[in-house]
């Protein structure tokens, strides 16, 4: 049984290396028949560039996603902290009977924008 398994494994390895060799020979033939020139690239080069673009796109998307999520989280944390601080400041101003400093128009607009 052991011998059979080893034989199968060898067959698979042979098939794998045959496939690699066929791929290599095809690419070699295309590159030889259609060498890359300045204006034109051969199909094999284009195929490789396409797969490079796809993997780069996936890598950049994987990098972009967490940055975007983190940004939203930080912004909501800022809003929450800002609201808490402003509420507490106004309470303090009331308690110390200090005159409430009136907000300028643009402060009001910005506060509305943030909430």
């Amino acid at each position, binding site marked *: 049984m052991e011998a059979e398994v080893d034989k199968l494994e060898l067959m*698979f390895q042979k*098939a*794998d290396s045959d*496939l*690699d060799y*066929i*791929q290599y020979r*095809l*690419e070699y*033939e*295309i590159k030889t*028949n*259609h060498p890359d020139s300045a*204006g*034109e*690239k*051969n*199909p*094999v080069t*284009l*195929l490789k*560039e*396409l797969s490079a*673009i796809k993997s*780069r*796109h996936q890598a*950049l998307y994987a*990098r*972009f996603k967490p*940055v*975007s999520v*983190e*940004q939203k989280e*930080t*912004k909501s*944390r*800022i809003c929450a*902290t*800002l609201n*808490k*601080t402003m509420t*507490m*400041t106004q*309470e*303090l101003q009331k308690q110390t009977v200090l005159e409430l400093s009136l907000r300028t128009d643009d402060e009001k607009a910005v506060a509305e924008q943030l909430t």
Partner: protein
Amino acid sequence: SDLEQLCSHVNEKIGNIKKTLSLRNFGQEPALKNILSKIGAEIIIVNELLNEFELEIQYQEQTNASLKELCESLEEDFKDVEHLK
């Protein structure tokens, strides 16, 4: 699942060979040559888009850093007000 993995591995290689085979005579026909050069031009444009996208991500990472700084200083402010209270 090992056998399935092996099967998909072999199938993937066969798929690549088929793809490459279909491209074998690609460069000889003028019309298909035209398609090749268009694909080449598109690849250049997409690469430039990816470059821009990467720059934008770097910029967002910097913006993130300044947002975090802002958040920390606001939390310091809040602690001060709490302390005042």
